[in-house]
């Protein structure tokens, strides 16, 4: 429902808090059969969220890098709630849903953050390859490039596990 509005939300001080909350709390129903549960363990709720919302945010990284609100949307993917980029008031608003999430989500917050960071890292590092030099000329942009380099997941091969199925019934 919010996908068509992601770009505008990311650059609005108030609306982006909704997006941050969505990344923090979205859950998907997990199917009940054993094999489907196993298959969805490779694509858990956070990874499904990452594929949709995160990729939408990353696709606008070049334009987001030019405004404080846009940069904050990118910072949230790799260093959420960092006091270097979020005010105490903003952190407090984002944290309002933490008690609710603790009751409704099986996933630890740190695990969720790590999965979102992993999902965002490749796109953000590619942004640095393509636009990092120019972005660094801007004061705010240099902070963005720095934190992407320091905190994005990188330097290792990401593994894609495929299961070959030789059904023996």
């Amino acid at each position, binding site marked *: 429902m919010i996908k068509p509005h992601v770009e505008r939300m990311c650059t609005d001080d108030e609306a982006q808090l909704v997006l941050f909350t969505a990344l923090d709390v979205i859950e998907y129903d997990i199917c009940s059969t054993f094999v489907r549960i196993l298959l969805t363990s490779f694509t858990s709720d956070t990874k499904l969220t990452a594929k949709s919302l995160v990729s939408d945010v990353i696709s606008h990284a070049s334009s987001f890098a030019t405004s404080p609100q846009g940069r904050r949307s990118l910072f949230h993917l790799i260093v959420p709630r960092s006091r270097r980029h979020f005010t105490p008031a903003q952190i407090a608003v984002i944290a309002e849903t933490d008690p609710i999430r603790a009751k409704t989500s099986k996933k630890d917050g740190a695990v969720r953050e790590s999965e979102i960071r992993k999902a965002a890292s490749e796109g953000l590092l590619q942004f*640095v390859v393509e636009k990092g030099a120019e972005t660094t000329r801007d004061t705010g942009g*240099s902070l963005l490039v720095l934190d992407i*380099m320091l905190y994005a997941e*990188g330097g*290792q*091969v990401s593994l894609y596990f495929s299961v070959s199925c030789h059904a023996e019934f």
Partner: protein
Amino acid sequence: MQKEVRFLFTSLCRVTRSSDTRIDKSSAMKALAEALASPYPSDNPARPHLIDLSHASRMYKSLLQGGHFSHAGNTVVRSPAFSPSDFASVFLSVVGKDVTIAIAQGEGAFVAAELLERIREEGSEEQKKNIREWFADAFVARLKASEAKGKNVLLEKIKALS
């Protein structure tokens, strides 16, 4: 259910692993180092060299340190997801001697100092040997005679490396 269990235990043991997308910081490191490798100082006043932009200089210094400086702890908080020694290696090979020496004598003394510190602490013997040759006595004499900001810190790091 029994069929599903057999399916699970007899079939799922074969897991093939193949590299998918390589998420690699070396390309990003190279891009940022290449941005520094242009001749210093810039011959275009409207487009100063990155090292002459204080915020950009701070960024490169932080990358060579491997993290942000914490005033609370009076120390650099290293990020486990980033290797400053890898960045220092890329810096040496991409930026090269001439530009590194030029920026060290200009507005980049603090960045050069951090580069030397990183190489001294984590660099290979070959890297240390090379960088000693770059920052040899002739350079030290020129630096001492200059008014470059940060020259005392750089002189200290050169001495520590010798």
